């Protein structure tokens, strides 16, 4: 019988694999063998641990020591020190930015400390490719309970009472959705899973599918039982190869073990599950478009009603739930609705997973109770903006969401409070932006995406998003004119009011929220032809304040167009005719002597010096 004294849980999520997990695994295995420890120490490859910024990451049990940024070169030393001699290896431990002391244990690291894991309950603790490991963590117990001890009504009641709402973006109560579908009489019904995660910067669902595919399958079995479906599909985008591979493996294993297919666990219940690959169209994340795509047709939404609970896939009653929603089901069945409601607020219960990314120290996947302030997520878990820069905005909900400014960071993260700001919780993408970001440019970025992804069915969305985009492009290139903001707002509201599906109904949100919270930036672009963040090249002049320049030469060395001249230790100068406005001098200067002025600025720049930095400018204008 094999018995190990330690388990090394090495992250093999997409992020860590890209950072080199495979080579690290080989080196670790070879070194452990070389030291004769292979019968004592077991290496387990897990799904995404969540702390992608520090990958490849490794958790050592039972010591609970967390190692980060592993390299092949460090492996021999790590094995010798920790696994042979029992001295945890400090060099690879986590250190807080700007502090030197190492934090050895995972539970003490701020990124992990504030999280509550329900959806991600098995993250980093099981090998997602082994069904036994999922079962060892109470896997399929909830399915067994739902199939033997509960009626359809019992299941629906628990889910309704739990207050669970769809985690894909709209936040519709899951129990209610199941209730509608269960009451419709039909020979065939479908239980569907939406794994078509499309928001730029969002990767919650991918992580769940990679790290814990059986949790999604179990949620689907329970849902199928609740509504009386015997067929199901998981719609996953083809750009998620690892998720597809692990889901397929999980379906095969579950089918072999009699947990899918006919007569599940000898209970007489049948449920067959298949994967359908999506081609990556953003609109196919919308439920009616997803169902058309599943039927083999062009993915376009259709009007509701009839709702999918009555006429969905192939016009049969269907329920479509998001990956994260389904991963919440099994623990609710096992622990009850009160347990689920013990976290979160009255209307937004439980936990939500967020993909934290952008200009922030701790990029990664975090699960927190709903209702905690945005500030806690960004500063306590995320560690604040990188390099001590100033926070400007956080973008929630992807292209359908909006930008929330610093002044609103203390609002609780609930469906209602976030909607009140003009953004949405959405699927959970959270992109942090610092003062180097141009908000007009940000709105333009998202409009480029939605204008490109609009399916073309509704004119307001197809043509409207293009007009919004053209206007934003004009503003960022210096062709903005008086009245543009009003037109943007007016058109934006029209697109929202007249589009059929969620894509068009939310596409103007990035424009509307940036105008609402960063109006001065639009004005500065339009009236003064001045992008104060120095991002829009047509609206920027870089200028060196000779009084502050130390002549260190950092800007000169970094300039790709040789537009900077000056002798050592003497103030430097930018030759405007040669400057391509790439910002590299601005980033390189340690003395803040490079100032951002309006386009084609003529006259005495020193007059503007006092008002050239972002914060100072605001003071100057008010």
């Amino acid at each position, binding site marked *: *019988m*094999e*018995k*190990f*004294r*330690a*388990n090394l*849980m090495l992250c093999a999520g997409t992020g860590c694999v890209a950072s080199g997990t495979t080579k690290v695994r080989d080196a670790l295995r070879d070194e452990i063998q070389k030291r*004769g420890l292979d*019968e*004592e120490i*077991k290496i387990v490859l897990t799904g995404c641990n969540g702390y992608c910024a520090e990958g490849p990451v490794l958790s050592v*049990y*039972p*010591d*609970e020591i967390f190692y980060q940024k592993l390299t092949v070169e460090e492996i021999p030393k790590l094995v010798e020190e920790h*696994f*042979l*001699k*029992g*001295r945890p290896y400090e060099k690879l431990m986590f250190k807080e930015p700007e502090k030197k002391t190492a934090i050895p244990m995972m539970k003490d690291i701020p990124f992990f400390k504030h999280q509550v894991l329900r959806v991600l309950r098995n993250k980093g*603790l099981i090998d997602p490719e082994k*069904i*036994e*490991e999922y*079962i*060892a*963590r*109470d*896997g*399929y*117990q909830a399915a*067994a309970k739902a199939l*033997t001890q509960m009626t359809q009504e019992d299941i629906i009641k628990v889910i309704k009472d739990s207050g669970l709402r769809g985690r894909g973006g709209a936040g519709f109560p899951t129990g209610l959705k199941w209730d509608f579908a269960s009451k419709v009489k039909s020979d065939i019904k479908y239980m569907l899973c939406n794994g078509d995660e499309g928001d730029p910067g969002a990767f919650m669902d991918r992580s769940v599918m990679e790290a814990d595919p059986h949790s999604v399958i179990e949620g689907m079995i329970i849902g199928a039982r609740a509504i009386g479906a015997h067929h199901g599909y998981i719609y996953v985008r083809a750009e998620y190869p690892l998720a597809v591979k692990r889901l397929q493996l999980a379906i095969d*294993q579950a089918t*072999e*073990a*009699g*947990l899918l297919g006919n007569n599940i*666990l*000898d*209970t007489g219940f049948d449920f067959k599950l298949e994967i359908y690959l999506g081609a990556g169209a953003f609109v196919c994340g919308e439920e009616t478009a997803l169902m058309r795509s599943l039927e083999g047709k062009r993915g376009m939404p259709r009007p509701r009603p009839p709702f999918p609970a009555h006429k969905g896939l192939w016009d049969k009653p269907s329920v479509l739930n998001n990956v994260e929603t389904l991963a919440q089901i099994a623990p609710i069945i096992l622990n009850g609705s009160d347990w689920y409601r013990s976290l979160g607020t009255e209307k937004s219960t439980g936990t939500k997973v967020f993909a934290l990314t952008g200009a922030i120290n701790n990029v990664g996947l975090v699960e927190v109770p709903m209702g905690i302030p945005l500030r806690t997520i960004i500063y306590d878990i995320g560690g604040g903006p990188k390099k001590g820069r100033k926070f400007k905005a956080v973008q929630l909900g992807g292209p359908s969401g909006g930008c929330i400014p610093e002044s609103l960071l203390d609002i609780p993260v609930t469906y209602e409070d976030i909607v009140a700001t003009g953004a949405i919780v959405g699927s959970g993408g959270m992109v942090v932006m610092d003062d180097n970001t141009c908000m007009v440019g940000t709105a333009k970025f998202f409009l480029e995406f939605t204008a490109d992804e609009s399916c073309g069915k509704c004119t307001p969305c197809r043509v409207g998003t293009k007009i919004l985009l053209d206007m934003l492009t004009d503003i960022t290139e210096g062709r903005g004119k008086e009245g543009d903001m009003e037109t943007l707002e007016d058109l934006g509201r029209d697109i929202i009011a007249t589009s059929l599906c969620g894509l068009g109904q939310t596409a103007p949100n990035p424009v509307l929220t940036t105008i609402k919270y960063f109006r001065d930036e639009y004005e500065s672009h339009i009236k003064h032809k001045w992008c104060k963040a120095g991002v829009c090249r047509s609206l920027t002049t870089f200028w060196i304040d000779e009084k502050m320049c130390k002549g260190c030469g950092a800007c000169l060395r970094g300039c790709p167009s040789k537009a900077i001249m000056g002798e050592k230790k003497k103030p430097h100068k930018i030759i405007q005719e040669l400057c391509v406005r790439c910002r590299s001098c601005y980033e390189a200067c340690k003395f803040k002597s490079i100032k951002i002025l309006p386009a084609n600025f003529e006259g005495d720049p020193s007059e503007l010096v006092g008002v050239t930095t972002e914060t100072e400018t605001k003071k100057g204008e008010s």
Partner: protein
Amino acid sequence: MPRLKIEDLQKIKEKHKADFALREGGYRAKVTVHMGTCGIAAGARNVMTALMDEIAKANRSDVIVTTSGCAGLCAREPLATVEIMNQSPVKYCDLSDEKIREIFKEHILGGNPVEKYALVMGSETTY
């Protein structure tokens, strides 16, 4: 894997208990084998192997084994510390293959410290 029945789920869980006791915590006893240079030279590796063998034979999932560096008393190596939850830890010295097997049966499983091999009782806990 053959088709499962409901009761099989619990059996699989039991079978994997040892690994998950490591990962989830919740063990009853912890043995630290001191494996500094001195300990290894004095035969700590054999002690460790014997201990792992006993745990495997007894099929116990509530006992975990870790290593640590030199305990500072190089002359009395190999050393090992046995900590049963909520009891005083016991440090054993001059260990061998046979002695650790006896300690496993008497102290770790039986709950009675083996005084004749003990160096000190009631030293610092590490859990």
